[in-house]
């Protein structure tokens, strides 16, 4: 274990510059200002799977790995809606999950934002029109930002979350 830990100290970090586009770099800087102005030092996200196939969750998990390292932006995932500023919703919102999603939203203190992550959460995606789904999160709770993709890549997600902060400041 010592060897592995030592390697971690000596080798160059894997963490990438984040979305490499200059505009998003600007967004990242703005995130810092916006986050501190409105939310103190960080942005807390509660993720709710409202019927996804689990593809979106895999990529949301990836945000935490050494390459994307979400924490460095002051963005973190929290275990309870009561600690959250943002609800990150995935899935076409299964009718069986609609009430749980609404209750999670109600339990989140204001000010709060809702991000619909992935095509399903935006409009039902491939599941649109089924008897068992609501065709997107907006049918159940107000949505502030949409991040398209099936699933959105970690870079898509990161870019969207940074954009949310810019909008939140305005």
């Amino acid at each position, binding site marked *: 274990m010592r060897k*592995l*830990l030592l390697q971690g100290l000596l080798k160059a970090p894997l963490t990438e510059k984040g979305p490499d586009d200059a505009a998003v770099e600007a967004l990242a800087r703005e995130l810092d200002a916006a986050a501190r102005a409105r939310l103190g030092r960080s942005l807390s996200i509660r993720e709710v*799977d409202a019927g996804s*196939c*689990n593809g979106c969750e895999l990529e949301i998990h990836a945000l935490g*790995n050494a390459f994307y390292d979400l924490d460095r932006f002051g963005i973190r995932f929290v275990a309870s809606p009561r600690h959250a500023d943002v609800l990150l919703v995935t899935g076409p919102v299964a009718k069986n*999950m609609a009430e749980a999603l609404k209750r999670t939203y109600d339990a989140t203190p204001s000010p709060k934002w809702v991000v619909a992550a992935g095509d399903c959460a935006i409009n039902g995606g*491939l599941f649109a029109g089924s008897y*068992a789904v609501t065709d997107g999160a907006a049918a159940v709770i107000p949505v502030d930002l949409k991040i398209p993709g099936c699933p959105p890549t970690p870079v898509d997600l990161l870019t969207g979350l940074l954009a949310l902060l810019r909008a939140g400041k305005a």
Partner: protein
Amino acid sequence: MVNLSDLFARNGSACRPWPRVSVNEAEWSALCAELAAGRLTLSALFGDSATVHMALLDEATGRLALASLPCPAGAFPSVARHHPPAARLERTIRDLFGLTPVGAPDDRPWLDHARWGVRAPLGAASPDAGAGAAYTVLPVEGEGVHQIPVGPVHAGIIEPGHFRFSAYGETVVRLEERLGYVHKGTEGLMAGRTPEEAARIAGRHSGDATVAYALAFCRAVEAARGVAIPERAHALRGLMAELERLANHLGDIGAICNDAAFALMLAHCGVLRERVLRASARAFGHRLMMDRVVPGGVAQDITAEAITGVKAMVAEVRRAFPALVRLYDETASLQDRTVGTGFTKPEYVRQFGAGGFVGRASGRPFDARRALPYPPYDRLPFEVPVRTDGDVNARVWVRIREVEESLGLIIRLLDTLPKGDILVPVPAGGGEGVALVESFRGDVFAFVALAADGRVRRAHLRDPSWFQWPLLETAIEGNIVADFPLCNKSFNCSYSGVDL
């Protein structure tokens, strides 16, 4: 008495490559007795318009057959009455098709939470108030026994489900799962689509196994239409399936250790998993390779540059992984949590026909790639690791060994990649096909019936988790509540895959 050979002996089945035959109630019940006696394994049980189908596997001979029972009166003899693994499948048939299992031990709904606004949506649909209905959890009596309800919204980034723990102090005396929260009506959506459209939906039964699902569906379609796909397409499908297995196993190994409060493994495994996803994206244009397996072959060929990328990734995993395995094996605090935890009895694994790392960690060597070989695995050498200790540690080790096997398979597939086409047209027309393919989590069964116009009449995909979720309830018994995340992660059952 009726057995599998009798079913094979009957002529006239339009189903390929394994037969589907009609049986009467007496024969249906006789087959249930065969299941109960352990001479056959239940592979699938699903509804259709006024019919129920049962897929039966003879593990000794590697043969599979479907028995179909017409139920004009809307009822069929319960399988679960004799064979418990059928219970949730039967409850699903009643919820979706309105067919009643007579004599069933459990008459509670399963997927239907009374929220859809419709009852029996795939059968004789009728309107429903859709306000939600109370659900009776099984009672637990005894002094000092308390209940802990968890979910459907959990603390982590995870799919939704409800778990009811009955605990005596810290010790779990019963766990009951209630799922169905992510029911999306997937099977209803597939009906009426072209095979190409339905393949995309098939690939979203469970996003982490999208390649395996698309593969199972496409193989069933190709069997139904009698289409032989090019050798290069077979090899590329195998390559994608192994990349998927590799990425998931690496993610799981890290996540299990993380649930034992050992975050260092998660960090290192997370890096390797990301390397696999990036190599997959370079090779096939999508990190999870969704919509790349299509009826007739694959949607995208691999470039020479991408092959170099995949090989470099394999070299890096081979360089980095042994140190992580040693770290896992030699860290006493980690072993203390995983060894002996979440023991799953070999007899349950056999009875339920549990596949994947859950089955193989408890002595059931079944692997669809080996038991009912399909291309490209029929020409590839590989080991199927099996252990008998059946605990969290054993499920980690099966994954570790499978990572090593997958690395070898990936290189072998790349070094022997046939030249030629990657896609052939699938001519429109009717027919029925069946497939069984191995996902990272176990065997995925597929049945597809195509109408004369070539559209999907009925498609059913059975997730391996149907036969693993119930075993998780047994594995946690006698463990402490705090070890549930560890047990749960070592099973890593799919929610979306069984909620449909």
